[in-house]
């Protein structure tokens, strides 16, 4: 690990977030890539890949539900934890801190919308 590295290093395949766990923080990827996986009974559905500078586990900041997916390191990655308490205290003082997170979430909702549209277009063909 280089001297100036901040955060925690995860090796290939190491789990960063377990689906179903309670969450009280979000993460920012400092280096490397991670995959988001939905565990459905014995099946693993890959929902996406996130890379350097991106947030993961951000829903735990705003809701009180359990983690909705598992996040696993793809190769070596370095991840910084952002505590819910620290983040919310700052948002209380400076609501604009949440703008970036809202932008990211809004972008992801847009992506999901496009995905739903794509799947709906596939359905009639399946019929």
């Amino acid at each position, binding site marked *: 690990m280089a*001297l*100036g*590295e*901040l955060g*925690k290093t995860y090796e290939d395949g190491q789990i960063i977030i377990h689906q179903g766990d309670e969450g009280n923080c979000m993460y920012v990827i*400092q280096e490397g890539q991670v995959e988001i996986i939905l565990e459905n009974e014995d099946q693993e559905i890959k929902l996406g890949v996130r890379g350097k500078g991106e947030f993961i586990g951000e829903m735990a900041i705003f809701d009180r539900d359990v983690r909705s997916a598992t996040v696993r390191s793809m190769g070596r990655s370095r991840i*910084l*934890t952002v505590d819910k308490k620290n983040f919310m205290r700052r948002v209380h003082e400076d609501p*604009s801190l949440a703008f*970036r997170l809202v932008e990211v979430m809004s972008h992801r909702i847009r992506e999901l919308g496009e995905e739903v549209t794509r799947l709906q277009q596939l359905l009639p063909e399946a019929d």
Partner: protein
Amino acid sequence: MTQDSMQLDDGSRIGVIGGGPAGSLFSIFVLDMAQRMGVNLQVDIYEPRDYSKPGPIGCNMCGGIISESLVQNLAAEGINLPTSVVQRGIDSYMLHMDVGDVQIDTPLQEKRIGAVYRGPGPRDIKEIKWGSFDGYLLDLAVQRGANVIQERVDEILWTNNHPEIKVRKGDPLPYDLATVAIGVNAAARKLFNHLDITYETPKTTKTFIQEFYLGEEKIAEILGSSMHVFLLDIPRLEFAAIIPKGDYVSVCLLGEDIDKELVTNFMETPQVRSCFPINWDFECKSCNCSPRINIAGSKRPYGDRIVFIGDSGVTRLYKDGIGAAYRTAKSAATTSVLHGVSADDFEKHYYPTCRKIENDNSIGKMMFIVTRQIQKRQFARRGVLKMTADEQTDKESIPRMSMVLWDMFTGSAPYKDIFIRTLNPLFWSRLLLNIGTTSFSRNGGSGSQLASE
């Protein structure tokens, strides 16, 4: 430039005096916010320093600790500090007292504190391996669209109710807003004496910072990735720390009238000697400085079309000065774009951030008085040490003292939060029990021995 409006509109011009963290972060946030609002601003940053030059010429002189909370907040803002700037990730604090040492680990076993140099490093540096922290933020501001004018500001004029900034060999340039981020060490404070604003310069005290070259390997062997802090009963010494960086360590002292005698008394203690190679000659120093720090903020750090941020406005007492620069810069930037640049706008939307910091500092002063009493009493130091050591050994226990010390040393939490935690009856009962145990035990140093082992 807009003529009379106190709002920033398309084409409005902002002059930022000082390109340290406060000035650069203000520029980044004001440009980001303006872009979100669809407003096109021009931002000029006046910074004479060249952050690529080692030694005082490229350094803004401070201990160079980026606190745990600031590292997280910057990451949430999209500013992830690179390894080319952070000289060492810190994952623990080692508390040194005459009665023993104890290591306090970061709550998540994660490196969340950054040790940086404000410039590229001390004056005798042979090879520049890391970049300047201030230079990194200034580059980010330039990437957002700010323009850097590498000149010292010579004069600030006021024409048609607008500030004008003049450098030595240039014509005055008019602005809709002047943002002042000059710290407390700059002679530039005299620039504002003739202006019709009620700005009072902050009250300051002198600190002492000395750099020593030990080399990467020796630092890893002796200091590791811990910041070393000292609670020693030395008159006039408030707080002391040794911060490991790349090839150097920074020794930082805070206290009253720090002079050579105080520095020598500190350096000669066995606790400090244990942080250096055996028989280390303290004359083998690199560079040193005695920067001033803000200990009581400006009463009214704003006026019409002018705002003072960072150390030149209000900062946190003793700790997390860069964190306070971030908070004031962000608050001034959002106020300017979303509300306006009149004194009323700053009073209503910017000053609450300053007041919150100042109110918290009042509690901080009280906390430091209590710390001083512990520093002076060996039985209290033994109790603190044993309680902390026990908590660090038993990871299942609630680390009440460890968290109080962690947040006091790192500046990660507001002093008010720390104070509230000390009001817990369990905190006091555990501390009194540990004081009692160590005082009445024949080998009362068991806690310290445990910790030192």
